[in-house]
């Protein structure tokens, strides 16, 4: 960044340029962003002693500050998640043995709810920076990372596995080093999907913000200044107005980083689209347009790319390796040995698990938790079904009208970010005043944040329905139910399955928030695995947290393997 301001190293091209009006327009924006980031970072490292109260003032004047802290936190988390993504994808695609372990591991990790990670991570992080706020900040960032990283990692891994063979061969024939290969081929190819998943991850981060910022694990009660803690305090104090303010601030925050960060990135990343199709219209961003018109920014970015380009020379292949020996690893375990080792580890893990249950929690408790898991399972499946009944027809209708489709997609993205805690006041009011059964009426909260994935994906699926197919259907005189049965529903089935898988995974995670609702002193509890985990977390009973989370992982993975995956394969087969 500072390249710009060091006179000795500034390039001639930069000095030779005269600023134009776009430069003057962008200057305050850039300076303001830098100053804000510096201020926020400074605030992160203030002294802090465990047990010290961390007051959150429910005054709208403080809201921008809290928003700044939250957004900084989320971007730090996004950076960490990105780093994790790179390391994961490269390791998993380069070494077959690593792939065998890492990919299933990621599958498990992404079914672990955020509270699980927090319970493990909070103590070590605080110990890492004694007497400083940074430890708690790190714990919060870590918690957000765990809600962001998995889908990004999967996306990059998938993209790197599906690189067109001819491009991969070209990279080999021209002897690109692994380093060059990553920056020149793999990352650019994966860029659109990765960016897309980063946006999704940001939404996911908001969803669990309250849990990440208002840390109430194991008797601790730490509130980091931020929107999430604000919401937590507002719920404690039954302050409806503050909730409304939080919604407004969140909206502003999402709008800001969408316009200043993701839109420019998306528009810039348009060139990485691999398909040469002209179907979808290109993303536009006013920030990027400004930047491209500004001579300063252009000169700066050119210098930066040149500098980055030089790093590509690192680890380059030596001049001529005509008969270089093939790079065989020194020691090579046979694949069977690796498999046997893995099996052994799995058996050991299983044995430890049985011992753990027997010694620490008891089989009765385990059975009870399994029962709770079944209740939550029924809830998730019923609600996904209901949400599908509502949203699929609507989404198809919207998807067939491109004018609305884009707007609705942006809206759905915002709604997916909406933390379910914000709905607590309304829900509690309704249930208490109408004397409703919480077991039944708390359930909709579970799909509150996740149903949008169905909407979102089906809209996308319907909007790619070939116009010719629609014209053909009209031409044949298909109408009403027949048209839906024969044209629309089969066409959107694959994208529906994708959306439903995401929604199902998210709903399990959301059950922790949705089955245990508080508003001031009022608590409403629905029986289920989510409320069990939440209650045990509040009580700080680590054995039962572990049990609850373990059971949830098992449920999610079995459901994925035996239901969603089959549906997905079916959808893929039908849509060939």
């Amino acid at each position, binding site marked *: 960044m500072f390249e710009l301001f060091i006179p000795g190293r500034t390039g001639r091209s930069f000095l030779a340029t005269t600023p134009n009006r776009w430069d003057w327009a962008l200057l305050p924006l850039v300076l303001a962003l830098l100053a804000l980031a510096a201020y926020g970072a400074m605030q992160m490292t203030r002294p802090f002693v465990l047990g010290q109260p961390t007051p959150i003032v429910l005054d709208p004047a403080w809201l921008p500050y809290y928003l700044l802290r939250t957004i900084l936190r989320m971007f730090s988390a996004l950076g960490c998640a990105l780093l994790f993504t790179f390391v994961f994808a490269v390791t998993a695609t380069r070494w077959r043995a690593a792939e065998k372990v890492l990919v299933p591991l990621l599958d498990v990790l992404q079914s672990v709810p955020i509270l699980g990670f927090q319970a493990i991570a909070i103590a070590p992080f605080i110990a890492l920076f004694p007497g400083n706020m940074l430890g708690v900040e790190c714990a919060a960032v870590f918690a957000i990372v765990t809600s962001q990283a998995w889908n990004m990692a999967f996306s990059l891994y998938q993209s790197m596995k599906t690189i*067109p063979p*001819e*491009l991969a*061969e*070209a990279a*080999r*024939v*021209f*002897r*690109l*080093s692994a380093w*060059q290969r990553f920056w*020149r*081929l793999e990352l*650019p190819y994966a*860029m659109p999907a990765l960016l897309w998943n980063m946006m999704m991850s940001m939404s996911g981060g908001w969803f669990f913000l309250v849990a990440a910022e208002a840390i109430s694990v194991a008797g601790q009660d730490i509130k980091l200044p931020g929107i999430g803690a604000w919401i937590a305090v507002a719920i404690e104090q039954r302050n409806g107005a503050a909730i409304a303010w939080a919604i407004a601030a969140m909206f502003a925050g999402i709008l800001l980083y969408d316009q200043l960060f993701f839109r420019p990135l998306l528009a810039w990343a348009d*060139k*990485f*689209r*691999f398909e*040469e199709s002209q179907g979808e219209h290109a993303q536009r961003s006013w920030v990027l347009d400004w930047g491209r018109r500004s001579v300063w920014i252009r000169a700066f970015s050119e210098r930066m790319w*040149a500098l980055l*380009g*030089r790093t*590509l*020379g690192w680890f*380059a*292949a030596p*001049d*001529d*390796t*005509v*008969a*270089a*020996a*093939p790079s065989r690893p020194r020691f090579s375990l046979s694949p069977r040995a690796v498999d046997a080792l893995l099996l052994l580890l799995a058996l050991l893990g299983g044995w430890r698990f049985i011992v753990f249950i027997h010694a620490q929690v008891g089989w009765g408790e385990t059975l009870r938790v399994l029962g709770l898991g079944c209740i939550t399972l029924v809830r998730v499946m019923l609600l996904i079904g209901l949400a599908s009944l509502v949203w699929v027809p609507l989404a198809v209708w919207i998807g067939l009208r491109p004018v609305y489709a884009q707007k609705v997609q942006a809206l759905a993205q915002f709604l997916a970010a909406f933390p379910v805690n914000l709905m607590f006041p309304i829900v509690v009011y309704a249930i208490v005043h109408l004397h409703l059964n919480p077991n039944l009426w708390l359930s909709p909260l579970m799909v509150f944040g996740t149903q949008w994935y169905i909407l979102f994906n089906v809209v996308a699926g319907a909007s790619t329905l070939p116009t010719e197919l629609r014209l053909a259907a009209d031409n044949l005189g298909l109408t009403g139910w027949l048209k839906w049965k024969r044209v629309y529903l089969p066409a959107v089935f694959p994208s529906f399955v994708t959306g439903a898988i995401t929604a199902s995974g998210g709903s399990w995670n959301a059950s922790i928030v949705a089955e245990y609702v508080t508003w001031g002193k009022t608590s409403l509890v629905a029986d289920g695995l989510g409320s069990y985990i939440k209650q045990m977390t509040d009580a700080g009973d680590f054995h039962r947290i572990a049990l609850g989370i373990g059971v949830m992982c098992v449920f999610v993975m079995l459901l994925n393997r035996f239901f969603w995956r089959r549906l997905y394969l079916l959808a893929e087969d039908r849509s060939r």
Partner: protein
Amino acid sequence: MNLIELKDVAKSFRSGDGPPRTILGGVDFTLADGEIVALLGKSGSGKSTLLRIVAGLVPLDAGRAEYRGRAILGPLSGVAMVFQSFALFPWLTVRQNVELGLEAQGVTPASRRERAGAMLDLIGLSGFGSALPRELSGGMRQRVGIARALVTNPDVLLMDEAFSALDVLTGETLRGDILDLWDGKRIPTRGMLVVSHNIEEAVMMADRIVILSSDPGRVRHEIRIDLPRPRNADTPEVRALVDEVYGLMTARPVPPGAAREAKVDWRLPDADVGRIESVLDLLAGMPFDGRADLPQLSEEAELADEELFPAYEALGLLGLAHVEGGDIALSALGRRYADADQGLRQALFGRQLLKQVPLAAHIHRRLELEAGNTLAEEPFLALLADTLEADQAKRMLEVAIEWGRYGELYEYDYHTGRLKLAGDTSE
């Protein structure tokens, strides 16, 4: 010294859990200094694999591969490749694409720019340096692909069907341009290996043509061409050579007749009914009137030879035409077929299937014997998999199913994977 030397090279691939499939078996091949060699063969003959072995992209199973006397163990700096689908990096500009190989070799940015610029001028792309590949037409894109390969000053240039994704005119122009550079000694390249499925292209370019046989790939024929370049496609010498190569390519490795009578797993040509019938109709119509020179037929059909060979083979197999020495002629049955209406055509097709195609006859008979006249596809797949690799067995059953459906012998349900005798409505 030979640039490239392959000795007794073998390669097989393992697909899924099936037995390994032999692509190349015992291939000897040399590329001499100053030589252009074209590699021809039907699909599945392993010509692309051979090229990739030379490029160091595919390791050998057996035998030796050497470049200037040194073993090829991986991609070499002296060997560059031009790809069928161009394989340009769509996010890099034309110039960046061309500089890619130099960047990998650690050439300094200034020298990279200079060399890329010179190469763009040479290949007729000056002014396009800052364009993205997607802005260019196919021909221009392949020019970038060629520039990217040539800028590294390769000793050996490999071309993997480099012109087949282009329209005929563009392909010919580009081919001519490369031969000009080569014959004018304006590029330091000492040898070219060209994989092609276009016989005329091979004859126009090469000093030597190597024809590979299929399953497994072996060198079947070699033809030396001493005509000076540039060659004219319409001269009698070139025409004669093209005819000769056609004859060699369509010669059946195993004579049809008694030998295949009982062989259920006789390999069916991978040709769909639509293609078979359209070739038959073309052959029956004017100007051919039932007899054609293969190159002319290919020109008239505007299809690559590789796409037509299976149809020729199918026509021969079904007894509708005879292929001999670069010519194809309709049989009496073929003429009748050509004049028939749709119903009769399908009936004839079915009859010939039962008579000439053991696999179809076998499926039909088994279905007749079965109570309910329906069977799962698995036993047939298993039968074929005895002698074929899993993917080939699957493909062959697919062909047999398509033919059988058309001949109204049996039907197939995609979702259940079951075969059913045709005309049988009990279900």
